[in-house]
């Protein structure tokens, strides 16, 4: 019989191996699933792990979808390390899209002739501000009324979606849009510069890469980042040291809100070029998975963001080429997170065979 035995020290190797084992198990189960669905498992897995990376266009699409995931996950990693459970990155993302997109729309409708190099930062910063403002509602409710941040941040996601719906069905609707719920297409100056010509990949991906380094430095080399993490690891030690729990709460929520907002603004002024009710395809929620698969580490978030982006694109490909439901992506995401949590047990425990090693308690 299998038995779990506590390790004297958490295994460092396992903490890196665990996501890889989880990924391998996900692939195995996915293969079985394809077989059951009557598809060639090799071809099916290829849709997820080979096809998306087989062409330049594919690679740029993976990077494009990975960008909001990485950005949201970076912010969430700070939050979770500080023991602040913000699960409303989706709502903060939407507010970033609304405010950033709102600026882009204003520029478009008022015909403001500003150069792109000046507009891009304004739009992105507006997105950051929008996300921060939305997250600060959660922070305030927690700080002032001790309201549970998990519930407040989650419920604000639906409020944000309704706000977006109101705007695109109402005041911001494109008059020439045949009554579709969408804004005007943004003017060219209000769009993000491209990173790779002939692709949809914008400079947001480069910004995300830079931010990975910035967040690494913040988490592991800054005094503020240290204080945040102590608050998460040992609240008693944080009180003893005099690190303010309020400051940690506000910092964590503003940082993660800002990052989600940035991602939202990039999405609006990047590939979408307008606001519709469907600005997000659940990036803020998927980022939670990215964050944990990435071990709450900025570099891990980068890799996990790319991986989850491949799953999303693979799901779309298997829909169009194999005729499988797109819900497959959700299934795989769920499997991956579930298996990761299961594999994480191996960090603190090792598996032993019972019986082979131990004799019964009393002999003679």
């Amino acid at each position, binding site marked *: 019989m299998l038995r779990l035995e506590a390790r004297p*020290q958490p295994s460092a190797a396992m903490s890196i191996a665990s996501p890889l084992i989880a990924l391998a198990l996900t692939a195995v189960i996915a293969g079985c699933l394809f077989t059951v669905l009557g598809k060639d498992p090799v071809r099916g897995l290829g849709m997820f792990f080979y096809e998306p990376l087989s062409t330049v266009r594919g690679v740029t699409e993976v990077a494009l979808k990975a960008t909001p995931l990485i950005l949201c996950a970076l912010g969430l990693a700070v939050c979770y390390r500080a023991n602040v459970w913000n699960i409303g990155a989706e709502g903060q993302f939407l507010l970033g899209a609304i405010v950033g997109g709102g600026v882009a729309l204003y520029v478009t409708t008022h015909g403001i002739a500003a150069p792109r190099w000046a507009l891009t930062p304004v739009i992105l910063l507006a997105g950051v501000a929008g996300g921060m403002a939305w997250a600060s509602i959660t922070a305030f409710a927690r700080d002032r009324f001790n309201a549970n941040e998990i519930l407040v941040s989650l419920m604000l996601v639906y409020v944000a979606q309704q706000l977006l719906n109101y705007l695109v069905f109402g005041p911001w609707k494109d008059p020439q849009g045949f009554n579709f719920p969408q804004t005007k297409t943004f003017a060219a100056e209000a769009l993000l510069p491209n990173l790779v010509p002939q692709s949809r990949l914008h400079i947001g991906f480069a910004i995300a890469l830079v931010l990975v380094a910035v967040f690494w*430095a913040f988490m592991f*080399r*800054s*005094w*503020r980042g*240290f204080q945040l993490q*102590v608050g998460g*690891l*040992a609240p*008693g*030690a944080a*009180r*003893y*040291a*005099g*690190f*303010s729990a309020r400051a940690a709460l506000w910092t964590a929520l503003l940082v993660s809100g800002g990052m989600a907002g940035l991602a939202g603004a990039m999405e609006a002024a990047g590939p979408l070029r307008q606001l519709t009710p469907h600005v997000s395809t659940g990036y803020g929620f998927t980022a939670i998975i990215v964050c944990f698969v990435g071990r709450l580490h900025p570099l891990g978030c980068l890799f996990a963001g790319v991986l989850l982006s491949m799953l999303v694109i693979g799901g779309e490909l298997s829909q169009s080429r194999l005729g499988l439901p797109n819900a497959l992506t959700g299934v795989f995401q769920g499997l991956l997170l579930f298996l990761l949590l299961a594999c994480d047990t191996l960090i603190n425990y090792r598996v032993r065979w019972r019986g082979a090693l*131990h*004799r*019964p*308690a*009393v*002999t*003679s």
Partner: protein
Amino acid sequence: MPAAGQGGTPRLALSGIRKAYPAVVANDGIDLAVLPGEIHAVLGENGAGKSTLMKIIYGVVKPDAGEIRWEGRPVVIPNPHAARALGIGMVFQHFSLFDTLTAAQNVWLGLDRALPLAEVERSIRAKAAEYGVEVDPERPVHTLSVGERQRVEIVRALLSEPRLLILDEPTSVLTPQAVEKLFVTLRLLAERGCSILYISHKLDEIRALCHSCTVLRAGRVTGVVDPRTVTSADLSRLMIGAEPPRLQHREVERGAVALEARGLSLERQDEFGVTLESIDLEVHAGEVVGIAGVSGNGQQELLAALSGEDRRAAPGSILLFGNDVARESPGRRRRRGLHYVPEERLGRGAVPTLGLAHNVLLTRREPVRAGGWLDLGRMTAMTQRIIERFNVRAGGPAAAARSLSGGNLQKYIVGREIDAQPGVLIVAQPTWGVDVGASAQIRAELLALRDAGCAVLVVSEELDELLEITDRLHVIARGRLSPPMATAAATPERIGQWMSGLWVGEGAVHAPA
């Protein structure tokens, strides 16, 4: 005296027990025999291998070699469950209680049979009354002080009617009277045939209580003696190879008031807290002031108010070098020179999962460069300095705090605060669960700090310690603080009386100014 020295089959007999870890041989050829009804002491410094040996007996650790015989039969104890099935009970030094549950619920969790909770509460009360241990089964554990938690653990072990009870440093948090009560309990248990393994570093207690004593040093047995017939010096020589250095009490010129509480009153924060009532306290530069008392009488609340973790104190009620700091954060008070060593080391004085070098940052700002960036080199250098100066046995500056033994972690935390050259140092339970060698070292460091002109406030439940290192003593009882008495004029009897709150009307025994 029962059993001790009598013939017959030992209840527990170990022979040739060996356990090697990658870095160290924790136990090397250990023999130990405990007779039925015998109170057997295991004496040794931290790192001598006592804990490993007890974990082997309790089935937590598997020995590499050697034999365990239980009532004559060779046994293998693969896990604590098997140990309990044999009739071995253990009270750990580090408690395994869930904070959010009540005492009774915690006990309930460990029971095999499905009993109603009310039944468990009833049997706890009965057991507690039988052995004179005060436990309120309905209180949540997080509201209990360390001493109170220990009592829950003792009662929990007693409930299983053990035939061998292992106690790891059980008296460190009890008043002299409570220690006497515990000894009555233990003697009663022994008379009824229960064997007791008593792990301690308190030589006097071992000599007063135990029938036999096995002394360990560096993983080996250095002697098996009858503690009733040998002197403390003999025991101590067996344990550390030399007598501990006597502390030098030097007459010191008392300086100005450094830390002062003026009529400090503080309403309790929950129903199990203690309300502080009009506390007056003065700690001068160059003196050590002690606060004695049984845990749960307001020590936690007073320490929280003095350190700045609780900032509800009325303005003007706490003065630090003449400045009103009642509402200042711990960080601000630290910048004014007030450093604090808390009672709980893991999770409060240090972050368990972080390395020692990072734990320096909890109370020290030197490695934080302008702009808020951490100077890792400086952190490592500072930690290395603390490790060397205070003789901390650790795997290096990167070693996680939780990988250190209790005594070594305490040396590190005390060292970290002393290294900051504080103007006022508050220390709670400086040597709780710390072995003789490290305790002597920590006390000597506190006295050296006093001689250097620091004001030291020691809150401890170990009376011997307070009598040894303090210049003046207060007693705290039910949230009120007694007037000070000169330690030279203090006797355990008077302090014991004051611990019951009976100083009113006695007339303060004032220390010479």
